[in-house]
Structures are given as C-alpha cells and as structure tokens.
C-alpha cells in the first residue's frame, strides 16, 4: 500500500520539500499540510520536518506547538497514527508533549552540520521495520539544539521500554546516553535529530536513510 504522507509546514520550516522528494523517490505520496489548518486531510502518516519553525525564537518548537495543525497531529498520534519528527520536528514533538524530554544546545555551543554514524538500539517502532538492533547507519545531523536531556526517571523508562531508537556511536552534541532518537511507548511516534531524508542517494554521500523512510511508509 502506498502511504500518503502529510508533511507539516510552519513558517520557517525548510526541509519540507527535501522530505517530500525523499518520500516520493521511495514510492510514497506526499503533500504539504499548512500550520494554520486544523485538519490533516486523511493522510496515513505525518512527518514534521526540519527547519526553524517560527525562527526557533523563544525556544525551538515553543511557538510551533500552538499551531492549529498540532492539535490534529496530537489526536492522530494518540490514535496510533505514524508520526516522525526530524530535527526541528523532534523538538516540536517534545514541546508538544508527544515525546518526553527536551533538546538543549549542543555541548560544544556550536551549530553542527556533519555526517554521523548512528546505531539502532530498538526497532520496535515505525522506522525500524526491516532493520536489526545494532545496524549502523551514516546519516547527517544539522542542528544547534540536539543535546537530548531528560530526568533519570524518564531515562530509565526509555531504556526499559525500548524507547531509545538510535544512539550516536561518536556523540557529537553531549546527548544523554548518546541518544539520537526516541519513540513513544507505542512506537508510532518517533523523533530523531539526524536527517534520514539527507541520506537517500549515494551521490550525496549515503543512502542509509532510505531504509528508515521505507519502513515509515510501510507501517
């Protein structure tokens, strides 16, 4: 079944068309959902892409979470619909309370754009289908606030409930436990700082992101 993916566009989002290109290249359908719409138009899955929603002013994701479309996204997620937040999208999901924890400034206090190796810690989620725990992927990061932090209680829950999806093999930003991506308890909502859509062509240096998007399209 071909999935129809809704890609949320806030003012300041900038990875929406890259995400659409990657989804289409892998056989999915994709359309833009505007932040002020209150409906998500019967799409089968939702991506909140990277960028700087509302300029990342105040805090990353802090203004975006109040957009009308986020209520619909929240209902969709709670009903078990697949939702993937990439980079800024991950930040929006934590601000919106759909994923636990928060993303603070990188430990080196610098923006970082570079290829990183990440490892699957759990595949019981919407991006893990077809992959094995321990699989290593080359996927670029591109963020200033990617340093994941949460309380010890949440961390132990993440660990015991297999909610840590990816960890960095060489931590670039100071994230607790090298966390690069997490999911909710049900595994249908995933947030990750690395950009899988940027790793969908050998010409661009890696095709490792394709497996994640493929999995997302097939759930």
């Amino acid at each position, binding site marked *: 079944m071909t999935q129809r993916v809704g890609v949320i566009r806030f003012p300041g989002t900038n990875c929406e068309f890259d995400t659409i290109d990657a989804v289409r290249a892998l056989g999915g359908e994709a359309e833009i959902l505007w932040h002020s719409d209150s409906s998500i138009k019967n799409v089968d899955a939702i991506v909140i892409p990277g960028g700087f929603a*509302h*300029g990342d*002013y*105040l805090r990353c994701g802090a*203004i975006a979470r*109040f957009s009308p479309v986020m209520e619909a996204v929240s209902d969709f997620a709670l009903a078990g619909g697949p939702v993937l937040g990439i980079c800024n999208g991950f930040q929006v999901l934590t601000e919106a309370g759909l994923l636990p924890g928060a993303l603070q400034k990188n430990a080196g206090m610098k923006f970082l754009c570079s290829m990183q190796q990440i490892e699957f810690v759990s595949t019981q989620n919407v991006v893990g289908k077809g992959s094995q725990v321990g699989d290593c992927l080359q996927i670029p990061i591109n963020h200033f606030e990617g340093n994941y932090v949460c309380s010890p209680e949440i961390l132990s829950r993440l660990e015991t409930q297999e909610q840590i999806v990816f960890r960095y093999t060489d931590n670039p930003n100071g994230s607790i436990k090298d966390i690069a991506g997490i999911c909710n308890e049900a595994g249908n909502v995933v947030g990750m700082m690395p950009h899988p859509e940027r790793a969908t062509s050998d010409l661009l240096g890696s095709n490792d992101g394709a497996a994640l998007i493929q999995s997302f399209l097939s759930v």
Partner: protein
Amino acid sequence: MQFEAKIEVSPRDGIANPEGSTIERSLPALGFEMTRNVRVGKLIRFEVEAESADAARSLVEDMCNRFLTNPVIEDAAVEVLET
C-alpha cells in the same frame, strides 16, 4: 568583599528585536491580546570579589563594555549586591 553581579542585557532603543516581535505576534493566538513591546535580552549573573560596591560596579561595567555586551547594539543594566 564578595558581591553578586546581575546584568540585564537588552537591545538598545531603536535596534530591531526580531525575537521579541515574533513572540509579540504569537501571544494573541493564545488569547493574550493585551501584550505590547516584547523585548528579549539576556540576564548574566556571577559573583565578583572587590574592595567596595563601587569598585565592583566599575569592574562589572568595564566587563560589559569590553566583553559581555556590544555597546553598539546592546544596553546593560548592572546591579551589584553584597552577599
């Protein structure tokens, strides 16, 4: 003597403050229509050792001018408290 320094760094009058304007535009959507003139700055706090309150203040002001702020675009309101 030990003092606590508090520096409120704010954009100078007339300097654009994009972060403040964006927050101001967003608040009405949450029902807060009564807000005006949102400005976003920084607060810097630290402890400082000096002979007197005046000496501490002058040290802190010097730090502001030379390092902590760019006086071309930022104002600094310095507060020094004995601890």
